[in-house]
């Protein structure tokens, strides 16, 4: 199916002088709204098992609508129930003794919502998972839509070495963390008519760590391969146009072994969410989960409840030899032509440049001295090397 994507690309490009992509808002019928969504899994690798219950929201106003007050129970194929407790945000958590979570054992979930709807999943069976094999990167470029513009960066790959007894269906979940720095410590600032000098320099908001779950779905089936092996499975690409690679980059790779039905579910989720909308666009797939509305069998319940086994691996990358970083740091410096008088009347903190003795009539944007504004936290993660 990759071929189709290429053709789309090709056509978009071939007709790039004539074709165009515009924003367009379709009108959605009212009866296509408001369905339950259940996502959850059982994983031996996790200490707590989580199930999430929510409602679908409209395309025009997308938001997470948690469903609280449900009673949620996980059940294994031996008939043992594991009740979960309501966290109040749509998530329900509980513990299952690892002895029950061996390959071959199956689990399902039972939910009773506050409006009296009974939701039940099919049983999903745990299969065994090989450890994460080597993860490495290669310096590559990605094409962009801009003329003559290439985005250089690193493409991460992972190999897979499975046993015959292992699952043939895999899903990678990637969580990235990077360290980044504000440009300067806080030294001088202006607030409500007064200029303050911070002594000593405040470095507390200069170093941040940002952690993100990469939303892309990475799936592999070795069903059609001769061995349960794969070389150079492409993971994420980290471009030089972000600040991820400046001071240190870490990737947490979680490899899950899925059942066939879970793989089909995720594969369809992946395909449906990678739509390019070109000339050879495919029919969107009907994503069939394994949850059923027992009370109203005609009403669909979205989502999947799976039983998996998994392994994780963390890697660190720094530095990248020869790679020029071209990111935007949102730090700009502006000289005050009339001096500090220009700031009169402002009721928020304005950071100023200066040396140990005096401040300069030069204003920093807040991003120059406060790294938390770009989404990171100043607490160093425990796994971060010194």
């Amino acid at each position, binding site marked *: 199916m990759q071929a189709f994507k290429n053709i789309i690309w090709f056509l978009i490009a071939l007709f790039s002088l004539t074709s165009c992509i515009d924003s367009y808002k379709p009108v959605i019928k009212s009866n296509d709204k408001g369905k339950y969504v259940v996502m959850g899994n059982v994983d031996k690798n996790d200490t707590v098992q989580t199930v999430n219950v929510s409602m679908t929201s409209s395309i025009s106003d997308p938001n997470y609508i948690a469903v609280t007050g449900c009673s949620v129970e996980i059940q294994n194929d031996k008939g043992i129930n594991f009740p979960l407790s309501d966290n109040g945000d749509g998530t329900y958590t509980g513990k299952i003794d690892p002895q029950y979570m061996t390959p071959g054992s199956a689990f399902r979930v039972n939910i009773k919502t506050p409006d009296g709807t009974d939701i039940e999943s099919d049983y999903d069976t745990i299969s065994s998972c090989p450890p994460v094999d080597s993860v490495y990167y290669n310096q590559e470029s990605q094409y962009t839509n801009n*003329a003559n513009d290439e985005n250089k960066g690193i493409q991460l790959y992972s190999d897979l070495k499975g046993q015959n007894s292992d699952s043939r269906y895999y899903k990678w979940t990637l969580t990235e963390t990077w360290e980044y720095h504000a440009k300067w410590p806080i030294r001088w600032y202006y607030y409500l008519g007064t200029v303050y000098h911070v002594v000593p320099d405040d470095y507390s908001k200069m170093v941040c760590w940002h952690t993100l779950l990469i939303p892309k779905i990475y799936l592999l089936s070795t069903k059609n391969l*001769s061995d349960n092996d794969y070389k150079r499975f492409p993971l994420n690409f980290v471009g030089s146009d972000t600040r991820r690679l400046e001071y240190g980059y870490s990737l947490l790779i979680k490899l899950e072994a899925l059942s066939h039905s879970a793989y089909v579910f995720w594969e369809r989720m992946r395909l449906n969410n990678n739509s390019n909308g070109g000339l050879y666009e495919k029919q969107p797939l009907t994503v069939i989960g394994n949850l059923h509305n027992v009370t109203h069998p005609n009403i669909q319940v979205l989502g999947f409840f799976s039983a998996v086994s998994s392994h994780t691996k963390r890697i660190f990358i720094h530095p990248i030899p020869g790679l020029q970083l071209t990111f935007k740091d949102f730090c700009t410096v502006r000289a005050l032509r009339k001096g500090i008088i220009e700031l009169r009347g402002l009721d928020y903190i304005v950071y100023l440049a200066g040396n140990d003795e005096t401040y300069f009539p030069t204003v920093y944007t807040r991003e120059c001295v406060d790294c938390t504004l770009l989404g990171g936290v100043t607490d160093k993660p425990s796994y971060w090397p010194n």
Partner: protein
Amino acid sequence: MKSFKIFTLLFLLSLTSYAQNNNKAYSWHFNHLTFSEFSHAVTQKTGIKVFYEESWVKNVRVTIQNDSLTALDAVKLALQETTITTSYWNGDIVLMPKVMLITSLPVYNKKIEVAKQTKETKITASENRYLKGRRPDVIKSIQVGYKGGPIERGKAKVLGRVLDEETGEPINYATVYIEETKSGAVTDNNGFFILMLSPGKYNAVFNILGFQEKKYQLNVLSNGTFTVHLAKKMINIKEVVVHGDRQMNINKKDPGIEKIPVKSIKELPMMMGERDILKVSATLPGIIDSEGSSGLNVRGGGSDQNAFYIDNIPIYNTAHLFGFFPAFNSDIIKDFSIYKGYIPAQYGGRLSSVFNITTRQGNMKHFTAHGGVSPVAGNLVLEGPIKKNSLSYIFSGRSTYSDWILKKIPDATIRNSRANFYDFSGGLNFDSQKTQVSLFMYRSKDHFKLSDLNDYNYGNKGASLIISHNFSNSLRGSFSFIGSQYGFATVDKQEVSSAYSHAYNLEHYEFKAEFKQVINNNNTLNYGLDAILYKLDRGIVEPYGVASLRKEVNLGKEKGVVTSLFVSDNYEVSPRLTLMAGVRVALFAPLGPQNVYLYQPNGPMELQYVSDSILFNNNQPVKKYIEPDVRLAVNFKLDENSSIKLAFNQMHQNLFMLNNTISVAPNTQWKLADYHIKPSRSNQVSAGIFHFFNKSNIEASVDVYYKEEFNYPQFKDGASFLNSPHIETAVLQGKAKAYGIEVLIKRTNKKLDGWLSYTYSRSLIQVNGGDVWNSINYGLVYPSNYDVPHVANLVLNYHLSRRISFSSIVTYQSGRPVTYPISVYYVDGYPYLEYSKRNAYRIPDYFRTDLSMSIEGNLRRKKFLHNSLLISVYNITGRKNAYSVFFKTDNGRIESYKYSVIGVPILTVTWVFKLGNYASE
């Protein structure tokens, strides 16, 4: 002055009466005499002298075995293969080359302007016309047969032929209308037609679009043959007639012959200046075409349900460059017919329609060349006689040079890409009056390379040898030997670990024998046999490169034979009522070698449920399908200008496309029905009414149809055709139905002419096997991808002068069905989309206006080269028609977009040239 003398002579001759008794019959037994020996014998036997010039008859050899012929009839018989005419003059026989001796006094209403005669030594065709053409109402008379010649049950079998006066090419689909009997006939591909007439005199009207109508008086004496030459009207060259829904061929007022006078398709505005007859056909009701897709949808059918033939060669991929250009040169098309309601019994194998293209024969009289240059491609046609009037050739070639466009595009991936195509064809035509032989060869090829990521090659090639022969005046047969091949080769190296190469090949070998026999005045039979051998090599998906871990998959080979017998009768019940009834019975057998998997009963056909397998040996039938089709049509003429038609049509299809994208991709595989996948079939009923408004020269027709299709193949969601040779694991078969109403209003042969078509139609599919695994869309009915309820097209041509004309095409289509995302839900904090039921929504409506101006070079008679220019603007309003609407989840935000392939006006100038003057062929 010589011709003046002849003229006076003719005048005097016509005054002479011949009272002598020349009707005495003699017995004649000659074998292979020269004409002078023969004429000597005539004089000896009868005392009648024969006057002629030696050079006219030097090649004539006379063989007559007859016991009762007059001298005149004997001479006529001796000269029947020539154009020499025979008349009595003062008791003797006079031969004249081409000119009929006039034996009755013509009526003149004008003085004869003798001074205008030129000094040429022979009477030229135009002078002949001049001489003959001055009589209002009294028309040229053609004698068919000879007095006392054979007739059958009181009727004479008349075999006529219509040829182009200028090129000698046969004219097909010309109508012959006999005023007295209100009946008629239509010429076939070789220009022949057959009539059964009682001896007597008839007024016959010969008519075909683009030629001057001609009236002749037929003096039918006995079984006989004659040839009529029609002259082109002074309009543009290479006029291609698109026949909308050809249903019945009776006379010019018949609604079935939906001739759309594409006053040379050359004048219509075209994308990038490349003429595309398929796109023009899509302006007719019931035929839908969409921008950027290589398929047409006819009456709610899929794009694989149309059969495309070029001179009987089936074409499996009709598009160049993803469907933006047609895979054949429009310059070589002589006739283009579409059957979508009643499909004659000689056609079968596709559910929706037959697109039949007949190519032109080479010029029989002289060499000529023509061609054109557009911004993306150039084409050239060469043609001429090898032996004048009997053997000619035509060669056409076309190639693109579109790479320069790609090189202009700043993106590196595109700059390193290539897009090339070419096609060429060649034909040889041999024509003796009794036998026509045509050999036609065709080849088209496309190549795209997307940087070093992947590579596509595909192409068609084919050849056909068609031998037509007149066994007698009432029986014509044609025998076709056809070979066709379609194939593609792809290399995909996008991902190192799963890079692959794949090549696919389809071969089609066919023999077809077809006979047309006039049984009596009211019945014409068509019957024959059609045998096809399909050989499909679905290819091997091989790992590409050392790093590829892809498992090699052999998709397998397939073989199948279809043998069909067909017979149909065209029964003229009364001058007003015509009935066509036909039966076609096909036996389809997929053949071994084949390894067929059997699956556990009542479960999904998936590889994990295989219970057993059967191995079929080479050529052993895997299964036998008997496919009877009944075809019926009734045509009732209400009055001179209106008629009603009714039709019932059954079809079967054994070959279908593996395609789960909305458009037809260049690596589309075809697949035969097999052990598990049943052939699909359809039943269609249709009715139409036609009226011709004499005053305004406007024709209007309304058609309604209802069609049901069974075993309609649909592909499971996300089906891949590269992973397994067992396609049954990816296919479900369901039902489809389509219905609609089609309106066409058109005006022809006026300064402002054109047509307006409107169609309301639906096309719905249901795949419900009762379980989740054998249903699509939860088993509910859903609109097909090409369910387009409202379609309207307006085509206008304004002929300002002979040299300048303007054309426009306005197209409106309801938006195509689409499956939309309808809601958003969150998984791990990231949004995901939920999609609607299949095809529950529609993209925005499509609307486009194209304009063109065509400028012809000067009208000087004597010149070497004639030029013309076509300036066309595609999508003049620049409307951004949605090709698709799509959604993207970008950094947690869902954005919806529409993609327009052509969102700006495109101006192109095409230069077209030909040898000779404005009117030359």
